[in-house]
């Protein structure tokens, strides 16, 4: 980290130019819309035990697309990703342990 930092100074300044076009954003929004529609569809169509895993996967995909494209994590400094992911992982782990201690999973 220490040596790369000074190098970043120059290149991060002009990262704005390779941002995607509006068309790309619209494509992603379409994709997000379709996934949301699929999510909503699970409410009406019974897919049995696969329901929760499928919902979770779709949620994570949506989350990932918004964070990486709309929030520019793909193109921006990795430091941002680090902070966000640190918060996410910390929150997920701590609160999963928290729910486990409350025996949430066996309660359903």
């Amino acid at each position, binding site marked *: *980290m*220490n*040596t790369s*930092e*000074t190098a970043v100074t120059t290149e991060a300044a002009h990262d704005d130019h390779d941002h995607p076009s509006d068309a790309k954003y619209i494509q992603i929004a379409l994709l997000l819309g379709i996934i949301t529609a699929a999510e909503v569809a699970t409410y009406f169509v019974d897919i049995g035990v696969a329901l929760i895993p499928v919902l979770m996967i779709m949620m994570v995909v949506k989350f990932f697309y918004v964070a990486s494209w709309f929030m520019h994590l793909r193109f921006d400094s990795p*430091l941002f990703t680090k902070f966000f992911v*640190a*918060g996410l992982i*910390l929150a997920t*782990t*701590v609160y999963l*342990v*928290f729910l*486990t*201690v*409350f*025996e949430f999973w066996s309660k359903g």
Partner: protein
Amino acid sequence: MTDTAVETTRPIGVYTRPKGGGGWRDWVTTVDHKKIGILYGATALVFFVVGGCEALLIRLQLATPNGTILGADTYNQVFTMHGVTMIFLAAMPLAAAFGNYLIPLQIGARDVAFPRLNALSFWVFLAGAIFLNLSWVLGGAPDGGWFGYAPNSGIIYSPSVGMDFYAIGLQITGIASLVSAINLTVTILNMRAPGMTLFKMPVFTWMMLVVQLLLVFAMPVIAVALFLLIFSRQFGANFFNTEMGADPLLWQHLFWIFGHPEVYILILPSFGIISEVIPTFSRKPIFGYEFMVFSGIAIGFMGWGVWAHHMFASGIGPLSVAAFSLSTMFIAVPTGVKILNWLATMWGGKIKFTAAMLFAVGVISMFTIGGLSGVTHAMSPADTQQTDTYYVVAHFHYVIFGGIIFGLFSGFYFWWPKVFGHMLSEKLGKINFWVMLVGFNMTFGPMHTLGLQGMSRRIDTYSPGFGFELWNMVASIGSFIIATSVLIFVINVIVSAVKAKGQPHCGPDPWDARSLEWMTPNPTPEHNFDEVPVVESLDEFWHRKYGTDEEGRIVRVATAEEVCQDGSATGVHLPSPSYWPLVFSAGLPLVGLGLIFSLWLTIPGGIMMVGSLFAWVFEPVDDPDGPHGHHDDSEETATEEAPVV
């Protein structure tokens, strides 16, 4: 300025920025990290004394059986406020004082990343502190313990407004901590002098970085817990209402998910301070710098996985107890690494026992005692026996007082010349240390015995005949000895200041120190560095003073006067002061009082806050009439703050 306003872009709501003009106006509008650091320190010391007086009241009440100094109700209020005051209004802001003053200096910066937000942090903290203490006269102080366990903190068991003040007051100080944490994180990551990579930062700055990250992630958790409490008390929410199936353990979990990182938020600044003091007075570089840093990070990281060890007796189930018992034992490892590294730094060094060094050594020894009694808590069967007894009180005072307060005093003696330009009396300082050491051990040592004898915590009195009389009396006497030592410190401050009046400032490098902050003259000039130094190594300042001769021996190559800057630079561009942090902060307690007493009060409070936020955003970057008001656009965007924070 009217002539230039013919541009196409009309500024909205441009306020002129205050010009200071000396005296108190300088202080209330300042955005200088050094002044804010001093404000933090002075305020925190006042609250340290307030919390100390509360402790003395507790000890007076408990000195003899069937004490009658305080009633049961008052006793509850006093011990609750003692804990709240010492942790949130004394220890945390004292760490913030050191952090504010020293971090920019140690990394070679002119100020923090967001100077106005920095001022905001202080004023919000002060507003919260005053708000909390207003409860004494507005219907009774909080009485549910600093941990505020549900359902004790609920309206049924604590019907006075005290716990409302607790919940809202801590929420306010929490805002201050969060803002300050974001600010200092950005400062450390973004504003280091050229060449200062992360692994050339002083250990103190490193530890403060870990602390800020802990704050960033821990404050929202307590914020949620406090919101749940506020909603339960104010609006009848059912978060802790067992009749409806709620689980009061929810509070304990949220509180300690925050609370355990908080323990490290409190102790790591002190570890950082003594990591600067010990190498300086051992005349050796810190032993195992990387290990120091990584163990600090490890402590910060592992601090998130041990919270339930505060709850072994709450019935969280055998599996949870076993898991948290294990993780708690593991966290002793990085702490042990630190202690060994300090010892190794001292080993073979030419140790100079100045007052600062004595306090630092005090930390190592006293904290170790506290750490060892902590390991006995990690073993859950033993802990079940010790829970809610004075053994626990003894343990955490050894780590908090022995670890934190001793460390902070070490910092006072070490950096006093840096801040005020004169030394504190070493003689009085050493007396201060020894009196404090004796008083401290006399107060808290016997509590181990009392606890193992079965004396409960938080009881307002006890009957004679249980064998508690002797050690309680000893502890009470000890507490007054501690008070004496604090008094000696105050006398030292006054006497030294009087003596220094009219005298020239002390030299630039009174301790033959190692890190960058000593490259500025004492006291630090307003602009910090005349020229931002280019850093080549850890302990840059020391390396500029010393080199090696042809036989590899370390020799002095330059005097401090040659290396230090003289503070003579003029015309350095500095951020202008601002009114708005103060106005914003003044709105917060109004909103708080409004929530408790009358919602009408939230209107002026809210208008003050929203108005000052927007005024803040529209405020010009500089005082337009000031000497350095002119500058180009590129810089405006660089220093302008986003309207979002």
